[in-house]
């Protein structure tokens, strides 16, 4: 049930508007229903603002949410 380790933005060349720096792929822990997963996601290296691309939210993430809910 492990998430694939790395997810990049679906498209575009994104930067954080508050810090004005490009995003970096960084390890983040996502949490749901007493479970945690390490995922590498686009993130602002300064403020930590993290992006969840649409394909991840509606794909793997929705799948894992359903799995955990049905446990």
């Amino acid at each position, binding site marked *: 049930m492990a998430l694939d380790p790395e997810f990049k933005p679906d*498209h575009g060349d994104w930067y954080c*508007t508050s810090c004005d720096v490009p995003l970096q792929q960084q390890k983040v822990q996502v949490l749901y229903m007493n479970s945690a997963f390490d995922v590498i996601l686009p993130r602002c290296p300064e403020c930590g603002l993290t992006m*969840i691309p649409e394909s991840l*939210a509606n794909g793997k993430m929705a799948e*894992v*949410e359903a799995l955990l809910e049905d446990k």
Partner: protein
Amino acid sequence: MPGGVLKPPPGFLAITALSRCPLLEQSRLRDFEARCTQESPPRCRLHCPLDMDVRAFMAAIAASRPNEARKLIERHLPLPAVLCAVCDHPCENACLRRDLGGSLAIAELERFCLAHTGPQMRILPRPPKKQRLAVLGAGLAGLTVAFDMGRKGFPVTVFDSDRVNPLLVAFPQLPSAAVEEEWQGLVKNRVSFKAVPFEDEETAGMLLTELERDFDAVFLDASRYAFAPERQCLAPLTLHWRDKVCAGGWSDVTPTGARYASASRQAGDGRLAGITLQRIMGGVSLDAERSDTRDSRLHTPLNGIEPSPRILPANDTYSASEAVAEAERCLQCACLQCVQECVYLQKYREFPRLYARRLFSNATVVKGTRTTANVVMNGCAMCGQCETICPENFSMAELCLEVRRDAVARDVMPDSAHAFALEDMEQACGPDCAFLLQDRSLPQGTHAPRLFFPGCQLAGSRPEQVFSMYEWLRAALPGGLTLLSTCCGIPAHWAGREALFARHAAQLRTLWEHNGRPEILAACSSCMAMLNLSLPEAHIVSLWEVLDGLMPQFVHTATTHAFPGRLTVQDPCGARHDPAWQKAVRSLASKAGVELQEPTRSGEATACCGYGGLVWNAQPELAATMTQRRAQALGGPMLTSCIMCRDRFAAILAKPEDSWHLFDLLPQTADLIPDRGVSGLSARRAGRATLRRLALGPGLEDDPQKKFPLHIPDTVLASLEQQFILRQDVVDAVQGIERTGARFKDRESGYFLGSWRPRRVTFWVEYRADADGGFTLIRAWCHRMVVPGAIQPSSEVILEKRIRA
């Protein structure tokens, strides 16, 4: 006026007992299981003393798998070569095909099977047991005892004058080769034969006494010895005669007094007695856990089955193709009446008895095992159709409601299943939408004798029509009319949230009592059911009955749309047991001049549109299939009296305007249809607020959504609806993101992207800033997982929590 005394429809359980054990009781499972007869044996098997699985046998022959069929014969029938040759097949008399072309030729097909296949099961001899068994008399009952007990490892000795003749005498048509063939098998299983002179009864009686002394148990074949007791002297369940002796194998008597040997009955006696003899040798109770009554309740619907004559063999016996054709006539008796009607029951390819078992075992297993309990319990529309169709009234609604309540009590109900519906309920009851309007024509401090309760979905979809209807009713009904717009609480009920429902019911009660306990006019059948639960002493009547009484005739005057002409009537599942509702709807439609058609399932047996039980929230695809299926069954333009039926059909029809609500035919409301298209989730929320403004006055015009300039293209809005994202959610998100400035920007497109987590859902919005200072939404998505750093406005809090953890 009738009303107020309706019994709650199925699935709408009384909520009197709020305190209950958190884990479901096994006895409840038994109660549920007992009401589904699908696992009860079909009549052929029920009437076979040897419990032959005729239905499976027929299926195997029809599928051209005679080896598989032979395995069934070997598993169920003792001495197959003998029995298949002489069986008097009581199964054929019981066959439901009897009056539909003639019973299946079961005995002939068994003979075909034996003739065209070799032995299939290798019987491995069991380790020999210590106890020894004597069988006095080599009739069919005696040899059946020897067959069964020999296979179980008991050394058996059969005593008679000859080992073959007794059967040939009883069944003259039996070839001696068949008996010899079976004896070969018996010998392999440690059955031996000992010839004893068959002189007179007295000698045989003395022999029996000796056998009783020398063996651990004895069977006496009554077809061979007249001193055996009569059948009626023995307990039919055990055939126990005395001490260690059982008897069986009597001949039968026809109604005209002729004696004959029934092979099935004699072999059945042998099998029954064998079990008793084994118990005698084991020193255990002879009748514990045994029953001579079998469940005969399997309901097999025969409507629509065409007669089909029995296939007769062209020669003496069936050819392979004749056998298949004959076996194909088998009805494969099964109930499944509810399953045939219900998309949800079909989904997991099971029937209610198995669903009950699965749901109960899932509710009691240790947490952590992957199960499908949630999808099963949350897929039921709780519409009550199965209960109405089922001859034993099995209610999936009742079952699923209990299991949902249990899941809520144990805190294992997934948040996502009903969260949106419960938030919707909260909004409908909240300050933006809920209100109570006293009749302004009445003096201060007096209460109108009636209250109009349109229901939050009708209010959301058709606010102008609701208000117009209220104004008309207020003038038409003596003493004035109060208007109450709020939720009836059914989302909480369906979600299994008993405490929430009880709290809401208490609020409704307070309102009702403070307003002089008025009679309630309800425009939604689900609301009626819930109000009957919350306010059992209130007099509750459907709006349609009131209108039907108030308008002896009227003219269809709508100018905004063409007159429908002919419509198929869709009874809402909530009004399944409310004939007064159904009658009033039909009466009003005919007064409007509409020609009504009845669908295949209507009235009490109507089918749900997919809104019931919150399936639309928990499993939208399943709900959509329900809607599709029902719309197809209706077959054309339809008339609904429930706004959810109307809106769900409209959403899938090529022409949404083919889905009519009764309001669209009535003179008070027909010209106020807001949009003949689809009323979405966001529109319905806005609609409730609109009704509030219409009722309480324009001074309350304060719609924050209108102030914030976010443009949402129609295609994007449709995608939001599918994901249960509201217009308000994305407006809040863009507004919040712009306020905090925490967002990403794409150098290529110039679009912004940010997230907002106002509750246990994170919304992502991708949008662009327009030249006029407003914004346009490009797309949006959401998830429930918590991602530190992706949350606004409380990302710091979440991060800290994570660090502490």
